[in-house]
């Protein structure tokens, strides 16, 4: 089991990279070096009225500097608080958490789809840097495009927007079809409807498919059973049809889970 660390990490920089979307680099002692793509951190609020940590995916790591990047959208009071902080402030974080994407399922001679939807795009950045084989990155947005520069550097990027303002008009699956793409393995993170569509898409085409799920969390470490998803089979830990997104996931094989 990978080790987890609790750190008071210093904000190296923070910038707004889109409407309500922020990018923050954090200096960490150990977390950045220990992290693998697809893992997340728990970010603790500095306001005592907000107790629960916010789970945020690791978008990039700089192992040399021991720094990690998160990219997040303001969704409520917690993320709004984070967006107000500037360089030098310390944020308490816990990580790296969860399992991460299984890099070994791709590699030399294999074609992979690396798919991100909306605020599920950030973890795809580090994944695209570390994974082997042919990298076909498909990013789906409602309208405004972000993180595209980073993604382009690590593979062929295909964009889909719901309003058609950039790339394919439609979903990430529309983009795959429009560009006639195929793959041996899928890695994806994004909203549940997208993951659900990818699960059946992968099933139809018989492609191995790894999905990163989201669920409301409390502990983030597997103790509270707050964040479960339904599993196809009885789970080895819970002994019921439930898996913990925070600990057994967030990345699951699409056939393991019900969506």
């Amino acid at each position, binding site marked *: 089991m990978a080790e*987890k660390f609790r750190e008071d990490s210093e904000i190296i920089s923070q910038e707004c990279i889109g409407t309500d979307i922020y990018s923050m680099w954090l200096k960490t002692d150990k977390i950045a070096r220990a992290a693998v793509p697809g893992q997340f951190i728990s970010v603790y609020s500095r306001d005592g009225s907000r*107790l*629960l940590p916010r789970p945020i995916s690791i978008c990039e790591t700089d192992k040399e500097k021991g720094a990690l990047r998160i990219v997040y959208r303001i969704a409520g009071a917690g993320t709004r608080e984070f967006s107000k902080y500037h360089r030098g402030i310390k944020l308490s974080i816990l990580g790296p958490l969860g399992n991460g994407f299984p890099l070994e399922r791709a590699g030399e001679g294999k074609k992979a789809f690396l798919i991100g939807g909306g605020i599920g795009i950030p973890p795809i950045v580090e994944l695209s840097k570390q994974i082997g084989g042919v990298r076909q990155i498909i990013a789906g947005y409602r309208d405004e495009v972000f993180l595209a520069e980073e993604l382009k550097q690590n593979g062929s990027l295909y964009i889909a927007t719901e309003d058609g303002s950039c790339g394919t008009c439609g979903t990430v699956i529309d983009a795959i079809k429009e560009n006639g793409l195929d793959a041996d393995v899928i890695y994806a993170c994004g909203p549940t409807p997208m993951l659900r569509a990818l699960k059946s898409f992968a099933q139809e085409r018989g492609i191995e498919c790894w999905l990163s799920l989201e669920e409301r969390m409390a502990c983030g470490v597997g103790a509270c059973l707050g964040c479960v998803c339904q599993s196809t089979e009885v789970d080895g830990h*819970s002994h*019921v049809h439930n898996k913990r997104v925070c600990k057994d996931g967030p990345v699951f094989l699409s056939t393991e889970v019900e969506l």
Partner: protein
Amino acid sequence: MSRIDTSVNIAGVVLKNPVMTASGTFGSGEEYSEFVDLNKLGAVVTKGVANVPWPGNPTPRVAETSSGMLNAIGLQNPGMEVFIKRDIPFLKKFDTKIIVNVCGRSEEDYCQVVERLADEDVDLLEINISCPNVKEGGIAFGQDPKAVEHITSELKKRARQPIIMKLSPNVTDITVMAKAAEAGGADALSLINTLTGMKIDIHKRAFALANRTGGLSGPAIKPVAVRMVYQAANAVKLPVIGMGGIATAEDAIEFILAGATGVSVGTANFFNPTATEEVVSGIEAYMEKYGVDKITDLIGAVR
């Protein structure tokens, strides 16, 4: 620090210090053993265990509130057989007491778990009587004094370990429940379980929890918990384990001064994974500062 005696006696079981984990917030100890040395804790109280596996409630199961959180986990658990095979051996590796929290949907359910645990190497049983009771139409056992006394005496007959009755705070008069448990033969009490609450997402116009209502825990409820611990401790002769919003040693001492012999750290684990250990060392520091030799001198000292 060796001069200081932090040990407490709960129904004949001596804990090295009064600090435990609140059921359901610490699993069976494994997850938090990455952050906390379980050997430092007075006891680990496990997640509720039933006779058979329970799948729990649909998600979302948790929501945040001001200084608190709501949960409707629905007592998901792998059932007593898995618990006995997997979790007890894990906990036995540590020098801490094991308290098994027991849940059920009917009296028979509870009896089965208590009987099955009779020969297992656990120190105390904590009976969660706030579980939904299918037979009695959804009202929890814990809200009716006759039911509390009855189930306590039935379990007492069967239990080999001392039993701690865990009381629900969703009652008009906690002393009535405390006395009912005492009359039924309880060896100790623990309180409080969560206050029933609700949150609505005004943008989605939907309940924040799939279960609609959930249990409120965390610092928000501490004043209610301290009051009930004070009332219960003054109403019965049993040792009381206090909980509800304990996040620091200061909080723990507040409960002890109100009458608690033991204290449990619950929701605080979620926002500070090392909370339990910090409570232990903070209590020692408080005793050092004020020259208190035995923690038992603090129990119920404010009245």
